[in-house]
């Protein structure tokens, strides 16, 4: 089949009534989750994942993907209106979005970020469509050694690049791997770390882990945060959202640059939308002729990052679908969905499941158009959502988490695990250990072990195999560089902080909080 018949096949799948409905539902839920600060996309996907058991795999993925990219659309709303990022990927949007809202230009900011989001996402989808099949073709040359190297790179990158301390990131990965070891060994069925508990034979549930570390921990963290919002409804009325000619003129290039950067960082393991958004902001400020406008409501400061994070959302699917190697914690959950629905992600996916692959990609267009339509006229509704006090919202969320955990295996043990992982996640937040590398370590650890052992058998016990095969050698070299750079830069950052701490404290405003949010990144 050629390229265009594939697209037609995908459109046919995406436009069935059922898929349209679930695409809409996913986009709607995603926006909702994105608007409410604190309720992360990981918690949302892990909560709704058991619901998809009754759906066709394609439909299930379409819905969950809708939640994933929908949150990034919705996430800008709270950033702009409340100076609280809806998701970590939107944190940087606070810097200029909130000042715009204070200047009475909140409606314009909301409208323009939706446009930027759509532009970035479209850019990402085009790349996804063009490059995934090429990468998948190439991936058939990958053996166990290459897969091991690739996953090692993903773990090292996610723990050293994306968040605060590289050492703490590596510690999180290690904890994740150890949790992943619980249960029967995948090669010989030897039981490990189950401590005689038969419920642990099949290992720790991915859903329980994700819900605990992200959902429950988030709720505990949020208990004492702002309770409800105070927003001027006039500023978001439809007539107040028309941008000026100057706004439009200033927006083009930041959007384009943001989309390119976002697409690139989306495909890299361990980076994703948050990093893409931050770097896009830094670039815009650096190249601007009027950098002093940034932080005071410069529209470039929201257009670049919002375009970047949505582009990254889309291209993050490239390694997951073509190699079966998830680059981020959310993609690890998507991988779990695929497995549960009997689809083996990897180089064979596109040829064995063309309907799923092309249908999913074409549904991204549908979903993004739905989001465009949902976000612009419904801005008023989303704003009202922000006025629901958290103390009403969170008990309900907690209840859904418990139901979700129980039904994912009909096991009460899962609920205990959610509670235990909630405590672990909370402790990790307090001591600033990032959560995403833990989840990635949990998913990739057992896969890495499998590939490592097989690579060893195939090399007849020769460790140098990882450095002799060209692809593997290159990946290992990059991994080494990433590790060195990560540790070095986090040391440098710490020294800088120490220096700043010695200087007198100069009022830490809201942007500081936004930055902290991004560090907690759960992309």
């Amino acid at each position, binding site marked *: 089949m050629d390229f265009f018949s594939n697209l037609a096949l995908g459109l046919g799948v995406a436009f069935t009534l059922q898929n349209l409905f679930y695409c809409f539902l996913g986009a709607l839920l995603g926006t909702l989750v994105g608007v409410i600060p604190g309720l992360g996309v990981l918690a949302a996907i892990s909560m709704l994942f058991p619901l998809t*058991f*009754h759906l066709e795999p394609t439909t299930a993925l379409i819905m969950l993907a809708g939640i994933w990219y929908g949150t990034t659309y919705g996430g800008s709303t709270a950033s702009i209106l409340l100076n609280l990022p809806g998701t970590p990927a939107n944190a940087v949007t606070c810097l200029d979005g909130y000042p715009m809202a204070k200047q009475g230009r909140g409606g314009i900011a909301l409208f323009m970020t939706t446009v930027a989001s759509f532009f970035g996402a479209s850019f990402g989808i085009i790349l996804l469509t063009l490059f995934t099949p090429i990468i998948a073709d190439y991936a*058939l*040359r*990958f*053996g*166990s050694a290459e897969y091991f190297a690739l996953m090692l790179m993903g773990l090292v990158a996610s723990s050293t690049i994306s968040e605060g301390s590289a050492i703490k990131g590596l510690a999180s990965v290690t904890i994740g791997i150890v949790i992943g070891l619980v*249960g*029967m*060994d*995948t*090669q*010989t*069925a*030897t*039981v490990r770390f189950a401590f005689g508990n*038969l*419920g642990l*034979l*099949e290992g720790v549930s991915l859903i329980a882990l994700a819900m605990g570390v992200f959902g429950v921990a988030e709720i505990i963290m949020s208990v004492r945060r702002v309770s409800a919002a105070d927003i001027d409804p006039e500023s978001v009325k439809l007539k107040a959202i028309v941008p000026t000619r100057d706004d439009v003129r200033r927006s083009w290039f930041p959007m384009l640059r943001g989309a390119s950067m976002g697409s690139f960082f989306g495909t890299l393991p361990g980076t994703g939308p948050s990093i893409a958004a931050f770097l896009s902001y830094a670039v815009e400020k650096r190249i601007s002729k009027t950098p002093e406008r940034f932080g005071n409501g410069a529209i470039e400061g929201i257009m670049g990052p919002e375009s970047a994070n949505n582009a990254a959302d889309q291209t993050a699917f490239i390694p997951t679908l073509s190699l079966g190697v998830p680059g981020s914690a959310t993609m690890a959950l998507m991988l779990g969905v695929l*497995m*549960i629905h*009997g*689809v*083996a992600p*990897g*180089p*064979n996916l596109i*040829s*064995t499941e063309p309907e799923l692959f092309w249908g999913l990609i074409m549904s991204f267009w549908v979903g993004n158009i739905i989001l465009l339509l949902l976000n612009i006229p419904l801005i008023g509704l989303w704003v009202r959502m922000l006025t629901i006090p958290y103390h009403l919202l969170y008990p309900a969320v907690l209840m859904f988490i418990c139901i979700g955990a129980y039904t994912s295996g*009909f096991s009460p043990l899962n609920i205990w695990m959610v509670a235990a992982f909630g405590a672990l996640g909370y402790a990790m937040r307090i001591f600033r250990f990032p959560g995403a590398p833990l989840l990635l370590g949990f998913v990739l650890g057992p896969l890495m072990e*499998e590939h490592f052992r*097989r690579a060893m*058998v*195939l090399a*007849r016990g020769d460790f140098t195999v990882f450095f002799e095969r060209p692809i593997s050698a290159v990946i290992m070299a990059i991994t080494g560089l990433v590790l060195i750079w990560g540790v070095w830069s986090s040391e440098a950052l710490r020294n800088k902080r120490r220096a700043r701490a010695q200087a007198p404290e100069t009022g830490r405003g809201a942007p500081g909080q936004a930055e902290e949010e991004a560090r907690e990144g759960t992309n």
Partner: protein
Amino acid sequence: MKKMMTALAIAAGLASPLAAQDWPSGTVSIVVPYSPSGNTDILARHMAPYLEEKWGQPVVIDNRPGGGSMVGTAQVSQANPDGLTLLVTTSAFVTAPAIQPDLPFDPRTDLTPIANVGYVSYILVTQGDSPFDTLEELVADSKENPKFAATAGLGTTTHFAIEQFIAQSGANFDVVHFKGGGPAVVAILSGEADIYGSSVSSAGDNIASGKVKVLAVLGNDRIDALPDVPSTAELGYPETEIHQWVGVFAPGGTDPEIVAKINADINEVLRNEEFIAKVTPLDWTLEQSTPEGFAAEVDQELTSWKKLAEDQGISK
């Protein structure tokens, strides 16, 4: 055995007949202890819609690969014996215990056999652009340059099949384990392994597209799905006949009435013309069985495989 006796006692006197009539009261999940796209998985997915229609409840296929199918099998042995968690597995159920003595469950008492679904033959496959066009060439070359043989996991029937072939042919194959037939076929496609004892459905479209080359059918006779492919007996390797059955199990202690009902429903699906038309091109020989008959078969095979493993020196 104790669990079985208790279950029988309960069934004889105390159990309410309502249990079987009300079954299933919720989603039925069928655990497949292999990665998606192997032949067991494909068969289970072909069966699921028919069972769903019959039972009026969703039937979910849950892949739990690892440990040569023992991870998923152990999981079902721990599940609630309410008939809502079932296992569809291969003869690895009887071969794996022969070489893995430390399993955390007893295959005789912790799982209840329900139905034997049918058999597939094995075909020996290699990469489409492999320089070897016949099995003899590959075997001969392996004696100079050792080759890698893929299996669907330690202790699975494909593992036994390849070990048996190695013993018969004197080929120099090192065995590498994968998590099911799907990943093993990918290893053939990528050239990571040189030979795999596949089923027709695991190799799938790759045979037609020429990405996978079929060298022989393991056994005495050719098969209808691939009439041009020689059998190993024809090629001068007798006694390599090996079949793989696929069967359905429930956790030990499941109400015998529920077991009987599932057995009857599965047998009905196996007689469904539409279903038969879908799976026969995949080289399935379908069976009709009773729970008792299948249980006796399993018991007998558990003993005979153990003996074979000891004789061939591959038991632990």
